[in-house]
């Protein structure tokens, strides 16, 4: 299988008042269609790793390849377009736009690229809302939904442009265990149905163990990498 995201000797050093190296020579390749969980203690560097994979953060040194393309020399515009096309994000906080309805939020990544909404994309958004179980509340303002519903809306939004990879940073960190369980099942199902690659940071070992591959980050290095 081909790799969708590849990190080669990636280092990340934050240089504010004190120099702080967060990642050390990380080599990591995620296979297309795989479901990967990333675990590690707070401050281990897992979020930084995910942000670098998502092109939101730049590596201090080393190479990042997304879908075979090295992003080192890409302009901010090219990176923005790459994120829009290839990557879907789900964060611990849903980051929905409170000014828009759930459905409108789902359509935003598509509109960033195309401007107008076609009937086809409307149908796809409907289908995704159905898929994440929000058909009934899709026209609610995003603020008028429960935490679980908001996070499921964020998942539908991440899927709208049919990205190659979805990066999720503790997507259930803010939810009760019941909702968290449902969200993980949903992510897994989507992975199986659409073949979308997932990289999910979680604190919950029980959930991490359901993944195809578990990567543990410790002190900025890959400590454990188990493929099942």
């Amino acid at each position, binding site marked *: 299988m081909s790799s969708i995201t590849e990190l080669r000797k990636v280092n990340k050093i934050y240089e504010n008042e004190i120099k702080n190296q967060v990642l050390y020579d990380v080599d990591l390749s995620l296979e297309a269609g795989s479901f990967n969980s990333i675990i590690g203690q707070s401050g281990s560097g897992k979020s930084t790793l995910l942000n670098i994979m998502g092109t939101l953060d730049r590596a201090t040194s080393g190479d990042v390849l997304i879908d075979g393309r090295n992003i080192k020399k890409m302009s901010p515009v090219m990176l923005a*377009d*790459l994120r829009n096309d290839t990557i879907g994000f789900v964060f611990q906080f849903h980051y929905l736009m409170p000014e828009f309805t759930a459905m409108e939020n789902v359509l935003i*990544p598509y509109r960033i690229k195309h*401007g107008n909404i076609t009937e086809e994309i409307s149908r796809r958004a409907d289908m995704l809302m159905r898929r994440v179980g929000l058909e009934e509340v899709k026209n609610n303002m995003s603020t008028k939904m429960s935490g679980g519903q908001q996070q499921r809306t964020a998942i539908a939004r991440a899927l709208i442009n049919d990205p190659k990879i979805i990066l999720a940073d503790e997507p259930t960190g803010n939810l009760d265990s019941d909702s968290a369980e449902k969200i993980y099942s949903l992510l897994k199902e989507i992975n199986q149905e659409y073949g979308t690659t997932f990289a999910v940071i979680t604190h919950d070992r029980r959930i991490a163990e359901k993944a195809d591959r578990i990567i543990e980050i410790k002190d900025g290095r890959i400590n454990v990498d188990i493929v099942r």
Partner: protein
Amino acid sequence: MRLCMHIALRFLKSGRGQTFLIILGIAIGVSVQIFIGSLIQGLQKDLVDKTIGNSSQITVYSRDGGLIGDYRKTGETAEASDADVRSVSFALDNTSFMEYGGDSQSLLIRGLSLERAEGIYHLGSRMKEGSLPAGDDEIILGTDLKKEYGMNLGDKVKITTTGRKTAYCKVTGFFDLDVSSLNTGWGITTLRAAQKIFGTGDKVTSVEMHVKNDSVFQADTIAGKIKKALDRSDLKVVSWKSQNRSLLSGLQGQSISSYMIQIFVIISVILGIASVLAITVIQKSRQIGILKAMGLRNSSARGIFLLEGLILGALGTAAGICLGLGFSFAFSAFVLDSEGNPVIAFYINVPFILISGAAAVTASVLAALFPALRSSRLDPIDIIRNN
């Protein structure tokens, strides 16, 4: 662009109170601008109309104070020298001594080519009684003289020229030029009659003319053109501007103070929008951050806030123009003089309003530039990392 517009509108809608306040702020600023501008322009127009509306705006005299013989040709040349010249007319002015009953006074006899002079003096509408002089021995006088001497239509007055020639003229009417010194000091007759009374032959003392209304303030330039076209060293061309320097400097002072008010209003509008939008960028940084994470380009992030500036500016300006016109109308309707006439007439200068409006909208967009740049510099990772 459509998405930017959609987001901009939703941002504005989500902060309704804030949006309303800033629109109100712009509206008040623009309305003050329109109101003060219109008021001062109305006042100036009134003043200019009263001062030069009923007198010659450009006059050709003989340099030595004498007579002009080829006045028709001079008039034609003047008329042809600029498209804005109109109502070219001829006048023969001489001082005389008037006697009526037992009273006497000096009187400026103005022999006018009446038909042509109508465009300058509008005598037709200024006649309070009787009719314009037509025959050789007919004259019209001011209403003030009528009151002073108890004159009646058809009465005869004796005119004695400085050359001691005398003539008796029948008073065919009384005019009111709104200026007391003219109402007591002028006697108007036909050009031919004056030429006969004063024995000048077919000559005049001046060629008078008006310019088109919107060129009134270019009268000096037009006068220059006429001078050049005439190319005569024995004639001088004088515009109203050189004869009314103190009025002009007064008007100029007013205009400058009006511009100053308008400039400071615009500055306060800019500062208002810039500060509110700067706060909006901070309030909406989460949204901007996530939009960028999802692939929104920096230019589009800028676009959102520029559009907000444009929308706020356009709505505020539209409301401000209505409000300003409302103020101006109210001022002319309720601020009246002792005779019940508006102190300053309601005056709408469409180009001025359009320019003020365009300036306010442009200022609003410019004011949005700083917040827009701020939003384009916003790094999504800062939002996501520091949530």
